[in-house]
């Protein structure tokens, strides 16, 4: 009998305790009503992204002269884990320097790891804060040189935001001939003999073929990166 009463009292205690806890929970949830929403009004208001945000890839230009900074060294192309960068360059006969003809990035493949921006010696390829790239076709995700190149103002903004050292004024001089050459001889581009890697590859480098079944070439490529590429900290 006492047992029964005891257990009944226990049960009541248990029930009241449970009710109290439920009340506490309901109260806490209800009190959240008074707090400001944390959602962001995204399409109406663009989010504030940190300067190092890894968004769409782009090529900077010299903020002062507006000339393209890419030296066609192909480090980004080599380091890309997804192989989504393709550089077409030509060795100019007059200056004996590489001229950038086209720069393609397939953003449909890109995983935005930012490795290409880390190896770039001239801070040319960068991650911008743009992330709105949705499109209707895959082919439209392949950005070419024109689409990739930023304006002078944008470049200036990113150079400042990312605290990258501004390019030295020296390469500003050959800008005109390079541009002229690139524009002038699209025909010559048919045989872009000089792949840009320091060592000329045996066959024409249309696109980097699958490296898997070409071990010889792969090894050559692997050995080529010189150790003096800058580390980006």
């Amino acid at each position: 009998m006492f047992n029964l009463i005891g257990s009944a009292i226990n049960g009541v205690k248990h029930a009241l305790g449970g009710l109290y806890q439920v009340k506490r929970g309901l109260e806490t949830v209800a009190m959240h009503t008074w707090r400001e929403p944390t959602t962001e009004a995204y399409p109406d208001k663009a989010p504030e992204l940190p300067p190092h945000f890894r968004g769409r890839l782009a090529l900077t230009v010299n903020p002062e002269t507006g000339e393209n900074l890419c030296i066609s060294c192909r480090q980004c192309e080599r380091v890309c884990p997804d192989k989504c960068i393709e550089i077409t360059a030509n060795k100019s006969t007059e200056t004996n320097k590489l001229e950038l003809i086209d720069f393609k990035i397939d953003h449909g493949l890109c995983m935005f790891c930012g490795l290409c921006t880390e190896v770039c010696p001239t801070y040319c390829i960068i991650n911008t804060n743009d992330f709105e790239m949705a499109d209707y076709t895959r082919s439209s995700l392949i950005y070419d040189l024109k689409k990739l190149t930023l304006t002078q103002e944008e470049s200036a903004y990113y150079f400042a935001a990312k605290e990258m050292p501004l390019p030295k004024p020296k390469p500003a001089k050959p800008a005109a001939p390079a541009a002229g050459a690139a524009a002038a001889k699209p025909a010559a581009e048919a045989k872009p003999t000089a792949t840009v890697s320091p060592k000329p590859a045996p066959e024409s480098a249309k696109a980097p073929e699958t490296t898997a079944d070409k071990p010889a070439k792969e090894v050559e490529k692997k050995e080529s990166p010189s150790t003096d590429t800058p580390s980006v900290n």
Partner: protein
Amino acid sequence: MTIQTKLPEFKTDEMVINLGPQHPATHGVLRLILTLDGEVVKHTEPVLGHLHRAQEWQGQNRTWFQYQALIDRVDYLSGMFTSWALSRAAEVIDGTEVPRRAEFLRVLCAELNRISSHLLWLGTYLIDLGALYGFPFYPFIEREKILTFFEEISGQRMMYNYIRIGGVQRDPKAEWFKKVEEFTKDFPKRVDEWEAIVTENPIFLNRTKGIGVLTKEVAQAYGVTGPTLRASGIDFDLRRFKPYSVYPELKFDVPVYNKDGDTWDRYMARIQEMRQSIEIIKQVLDMIPEGEIMSKKQNAGLRIKAGEGFAAVESPRGILGCYITSNGSDKPYRFRWRNPSFSNLSVLPPLLEERPISDIMAIFGSLDIILPDVDR
């Protein structure tokens, strides 16, 4: 006339049901082939691999530098730890000395990441238990802040690629540390709030107390690690047991639950771990020295000396290990992940035996499995 005292034998058929791979509560694409008697589970057969992305194969076919960027995907909720495990293994083989500031930054980021991972677990666990609409948002609000911190230093919210072989990628600014400090002050209050809603809630207690009891012996036999193991009463935390990095200099408790090893203990273990992580972060913020953050040049030709090694870190889910055989080239020769989720998941079938179907979610959720970590 006789009175029939015994009921006639009542025979039921068993039902085989596929839980997943597309199911709201399998945290991804786990498939469980359940044999049910009514609602009681008789046999469980997990089918893995729906998310298999050949991470080990990719490790062997990419250079060190490239692969560092990929491994955050192994366990996308705690990318810092996957990076850390890889970096540690490589450093151990290579004999790289990591700068002190980098070590502190690693600990700081890792503990923040541990909190964010546990927060996601907390939210989704309550979803598993049916509190679908209210509570789960609160941990996510806090997690969002942590992700913003990471976004600021690494550039992305989940695929950080921040911890590198030989150091860390970027030195945060002073304001960043200030923000983290504010967060550490604010966070314990939030945990108190959540505990007020959840911990003693009678329905929650009913759903978790005494459910999915994982005994010490079973846990050890299956190689279970992490909070799941510590909730079973085994004090086995790598940060304490085989201290690495600067953990020996930091004071913190390892929450161990000695009683049952049920789902409630696992819940509490994680809640307490978050509080401890906050303590660690506070200390790190005080102790962090100035100095270099990287001792190994990060470039496409990153190479590691020949040798082999195994290094592990205590990830939010347990021991995340990395067994690497290097031959001195710029690619690892053999890359092997030891993932906590893989071992923790293997204990699921014995835990589910003879449990009703509702408990599947309570138990499975409490193990804190993340499927990409299982399938790699």
